[in-house]
């Protein structure tokens, strides 16, 4: 029993050094050499300064930008230091209110748009940091963004296409549009600024 106790303590120490320090350090070393961009958060740089991460969404509610999905992080949306979903249940009145508020905001920004709104555009993501909207949600907003920026729709369509990733091998996951990258590209056009 005493011997087993001694082994228990010693083995915890040894395994802690091996799996708690050696293993993550070795992976960090390899990752920093093999995939330096991804290992450091896939940050987007402009003039040497980070302007966002291509994997982390940001909030938008200006008509000239594509809007991201709702985010339930606190105290502000898209708080990447405290990820969270809304955790609102399917029969919770608070869920319906959040959705109705978003529907109203979308209608207010684009009164002539009578299409049905794609579901991802009115619901909060699980992480509160979703970088994507569906292509349907991008199409829903396309005319609004083009007219707010006074640029031809074809240019906006081109950019949407460029920032859409399909399913992996056409099979896995869902097609998705990277909202931050799309909006940064729109800003780079120079229009609407």
């Amino acid at each position, binding site marked *: 029993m005493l011997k087993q106790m001694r*082994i228990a303590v*010693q*083995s*915890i120490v*040894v395994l*802690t050094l*091996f799996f708690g320090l050696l*293993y*993550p350090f*070795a*992976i*960090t070393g390899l*990752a*920093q050499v*093999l*995939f330096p961009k*991804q290992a*450091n958060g*896939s940050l987007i740089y402009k003039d040497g300064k*980070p*302007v*966002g*991460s291509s994997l*982390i969404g*940001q909030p938008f509610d200006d008509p000239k930008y594509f809007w991201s*999905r709702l985010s339930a992080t606190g*105290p502000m*949306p*898209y708080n990447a*230091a*405290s*990820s*969270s*979903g809304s*955790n*609102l*249940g*399917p*029969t*919770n*009145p608070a869920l*319906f209110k959040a*959705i109705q508020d978003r529907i109203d905001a979308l209608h207010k920004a684009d009164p002539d748009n009578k299409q049905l*709104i*794609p*579901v*991802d555009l009115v619901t*909060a993501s699980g*992480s*509160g*940091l*979703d970088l994507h909207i*569906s292509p349907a949600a991008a*199409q829903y907003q396309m005319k609004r963004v083009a007219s707010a920026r006074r640029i031809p729709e074809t240019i906006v369509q081109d950019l949407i296409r460029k920032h859409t990733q399909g399913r*992996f091998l056409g099979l*896995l*996951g*869902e*097609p998705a549009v990277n909202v931050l990258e799309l909006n*940064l590209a729109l800003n780079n056009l120079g229009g609407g600024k």
Partner: protein
Amino acid sequence: MNTNNFIQCAIYIGVLVLLVKPLGSYMAKVYEGTPQWIDKLFGPIERLIYRLSGITTEEMTWKKYAVATMLFNVVGILVVYLIQRAQNHLPFNPMAMAPVSPDSSFNTAVSFGTNTNWQGYGGESTMSYLAQMLALTVQNFASAATGMAVLVALIRGFVRKKAETIGNFWVDLVRSSVYILFPLSVVFALVLTWQGVPQTFRPSATVPLVQATVDSNQKPVMDQIIAMGPVASQIAIKQLGTNGGGYFNANSAHPYENPTPLSNFFELEAILLIAAALCYTFGAMVKDTRQGWALLAAMLIIFIPMLWLGVASEQQGNPALTKMGVNQTASALQPGGNMEGKEVRFGIAQSALWATATTAASNGSVNSMHDSFTPLGGLVPMVMMKLGEVVFGGVGSGLYGMLIFVLIAVFLGGLMVGRTPEYLGKKIEAYEIKMASIAALIMGFFVLVGTAMAVLMKAGLAGIANPGPHGFSEILYAFTSTANNNGSAFAGLSVNTPFYNTILGITMFFCRYWIIIPVLAIAGSLARKKIVPVSAGTLPTHTPLFVFFLVCVVIIVGALTFFPALSLGPIVEHLMMIG
């Protein structure tokens, strides 16, 4: 269920089944000590760990094995507790995290020690880099290896005849970690980094928002602080070891834990990989691989219909939203369905698939928020856990749980036809059935009594986030998850309180070890028996008939225990929603 959903689920299950035999036979060789070329690589590490830890490799009786298991786990839990309490004095804390509260530290220590990885805290806002690595990553390995060791001891009980011993816990522990978990984690961690999972010691990044926003007090917010850290190394083992504890609060929904459909696919496979392959390992070690395939078949027979129910319910969406003018129909341009709490890149299929797999295994990581699922979509993960985490289940623990049900099934079968029950040539007698019953009943006791206590107490009700039956479901889910060492949650429930941290911590502890000890007792008792030769009176246990019978036993035990509780939660809510 549309074609696309069907294809994604089929690919997942197909690839999983293909991996079972190669990994399963490798693991069998590891546990039997058969020489392999890979020994040259891992043998030196193994022997170094033995030497530094003072491990001697003598055989152990079941009692000694159980003592070693418990000592290792209790010491490990204590270390995790202390690191959290002292993290502000330790290095690798670039974001200056304060010490974790005593009740939360207790809960998290038990949670990671028991392979549950229930999380009352938010990772990126609570834990230092050092705590994530030294406390949590280590237990991800240690708790998984504990489960695998106990399983191997039980298998030896079937294999050995007239033996007093069932192996050496330390050897099984170290070999599980060094030969199986470690190499898979290294490869997997690098694949994840390639896909975009960070692996860095730099502090959080601060970037300017393209469009400024306001916080809940209407104060302007100009910047976004992006938490990162040594994430990939932890995510790799958290999936492979059926741990499930997220680096970030949003767990595998967070783009840094699970950035792409491909990372999602790999992580999903990792969730069930070892648990599924252990079925083959079992078959190989008892020298009758049909027995292993039969158990895998039983698991899939339960898994596939539940998966279908989950995907179909989520794809159906929420009728209330359709009335509000929202388009929930799947098309080439959108996944449609119930997207609250889900990520666009995963859509419905990959989210519901994950929810089913993570609760079939006792993994408990989530890539979508189960609390926001439709009532029937949320019923699926709850039922998967309530079956006792034996459909794949935790690494090791899932299969020893399933073998407990097998013993109960051959016992019931034996009663029906009036023969002495036996399994793999071992007579199953009163002692084994007593131990099996203890192991099978403890979980239901903790779930039902715990839920009843929480709904009767102010401290329990205070945590509820959603009104009506959904609030009850949140509490029921919490006890189901912790009692089955799963760790997923209806995360709206506020559980980082002294009440929940304590009661759920106790639940996790007892439901893990109250099963491990009787399982080892069964192993010891079986090892002592002789092997009865197969005769005309032997009930074959690899046939479709037995598989079907086993599935019925698993479902009846689960359904009878929990149907009343489920009808007060998700079933009532479903009727309200469609009403």
